[in-house]
């Protein structure tokens, strides 16, 4: 019981801090950045459910995000559907898309699935660019997407505080559901399939069915946050399917660590803030991010730590060595 309580304290503290941010944040820019962090945290953690927990190498995840966003935006703009229904429609469309691409392809070998989903994302991109019937706006994108509102209260980038709380609510919903999934029989099945595929099958776990469930759950929340993104920004373009965003999304998983629950979420916050703070550098921004990613892949955290220790060894004084030794010997 004590173990469980300790596990819940830190996330609860983080939630409280996040909930109190609008009272402390001085500028709208900080809030906007945090909303983007929350959006990418949802995307990354749902992607993590597929890649990290279930071993599904889905490279079309941003395609699902775009499907959610475009479904919502097109429904609200061209067909006058209420944005709240648009959110549900976006999420449902993404889940359906996950089902449709998952059904024929999840039986394939891992590498084929990865390539297939990658081309799926490119297909979504092409569809947006073709601009059938002027619905998706092509390369110019969509502007003046109506925003979510209750009465006079709007949830867009002009009223950031309310938008922030809505984003936080979606983030919490997604995270709690993911947590429940990962710590249920379903999650155990996912992990069994990832870690010991043949044994899991021999114990009667259907890889196909469980992988499909994982894809559909994660697609649903990705579509939901995609729809929120469209309504929040109020504009949408094919840049959400760009190479750079795909790679930063990948970096969130790598740096956060595969198969960890909070890793991708924390990495999403760190990388979104970092990508934003480097945005003045133009092409150098992606060069820096790409170099960091490659370095992170080539050297494991342990190795980086060991090297840091070697470099700083002459700087560390004797009392620190003594202190750290004593502390270690005191531990049970």
């Amino acid at each position, binding site marked *: 019981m004590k173990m469980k309580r300790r596990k819940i304290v830190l996330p609860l503290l983080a939630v409280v801090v996040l909930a109190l941010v609008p009272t402390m944040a001085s500028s709208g820019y900080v809030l906007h950045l945090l909303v983007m962090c929350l959006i990418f945290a949802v995307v990354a953690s749902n992607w993590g459910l597929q890649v990290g927990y279930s071993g599904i190498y889905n490279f079309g995840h941003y395609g699902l995000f775009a499907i959610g966003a475009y479904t919502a935006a097109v429904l609200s703009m061209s067909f006058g559907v209420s944005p709240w229904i648009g959110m549900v429609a976006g999420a449902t469309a993404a889940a359906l898309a996950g089902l449709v691409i998952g059904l024929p392809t999840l039986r394939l070998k891992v590498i084929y699935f990865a390539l297939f989903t990658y081309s799926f994302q490119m*297909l979504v991109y092409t569809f947006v660019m073709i601009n059938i019937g002027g619905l998706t706006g092509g390369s110019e994108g969509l502007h003046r997407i109506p925003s979510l509102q209750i009465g006079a209260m709007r949830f867009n980038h002009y009223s950031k505080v309310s938008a922030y709380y809505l984003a936080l609510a979606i983030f919490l919903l997604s995270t709690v559901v993911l947590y429940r999934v990962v710590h249920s029989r379903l999650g155990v099945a996912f992990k069994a399939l990832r870690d010991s595929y043949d044994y899991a099958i021999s114990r009667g776990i259907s890889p196909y069915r469980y992988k499909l469930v994982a894809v559909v759950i994660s697609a649903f929340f990705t579509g939901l946050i995609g729809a929120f993104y469209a309504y929040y920004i109020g504009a949408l373009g094919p840049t959400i399917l760009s190479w750079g965003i795909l790679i930063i999304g990948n*970096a969130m998983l790598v740096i956060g660590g595969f198969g960890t629950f909070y890793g991708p979420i924390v990495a999403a916050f760190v990388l979104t803030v970092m990508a934003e703070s480097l945005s003045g550098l133009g092409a150098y921004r992606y060069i820096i991010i790409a170099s960091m990613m*490659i370095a992170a892949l080539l050297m494991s955290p342990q190795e980086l730590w060991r090297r840091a220790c070697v470099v700083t060894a002459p700087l560390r004084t004797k009392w620190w060595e003594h202190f750290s030794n004593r502390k270690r010997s005191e531990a049970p």
Partner: protein
Amino acid sequence: MDFGSIVLIVVSGLALGSLYCIMSMGLTLTFSTLKAFNFSHGAIIALGAYLTYFFLTTMGVHYSLAIMLMVVCCLVIGIVIERTILKRLLAKGLMEIIIGTLGIALLIENIVLLVFGGRLKRLPVPIEGAVALGSGSISYYDLVILGCGLLILAVMAYFLKRTRVGMAMRAVAQDKEASHAVGIPVARVNMYAFAISVALAGLAGAFMGSVYFMTPSMGNDALTRAFLICVLGGLGSIKGTVLAAFVVGIIESVTALILGIYWTPLVLFVFMMAVLIIRPSGLFGEEA
């Protein structure tokens, strides 16, 4: 539809197919020997186009010399990437390789953007003019690409079947451990295979730069096409890749004529889905 138009579709489809052939053969070669899928292939295609542009316009050398210089540069770049990054990624997992090569792609793309700028550029076409065929015409340059594609195919076939290094590559592709056991330097063979794959990508870029416009991100589209072809042909099967490249080329030119060029990605995607449902490891892939 008259006979001339059918010939036109077939010839332009074959020309496109041979371009795709050059584009995707390197990818298949890397996959079969290194067992790694190289997501930076597209960026290297763009790099090849821009290097050719650099040698042609800035240095002002002859077209054939520019291509040769570009190939040499690509071989060197391939060796450097393999030695410094890819070799270490291979020791890790599939996900690490994919993301690492994505990182390399991002790096190359933005370096190209930094050096050459983002404006649309076009490589000069070495041979102007066209042959009238049926309702349309086919340019001499398309025929040159078709010829070059077939030539490169023949050279690659000779290299893989007859030379020592080529045979070593096929051995490594079949069984890495056994190749180790009979004394094949697997690491070095991997390096050669990757360097050749980079050079092939560069060549594809040089051809593409004259057919389409060049942008630093031109490789993404090419990469998607090359993936599709590799998957259709069965990963790691060179024979399958070559066939799939021509099949895709012809499908594309037929679709472009009947439905319009925008529909080709959808038609190709549906075709790939259908093939994968019937044969989960591609047209010529080994059974799973």
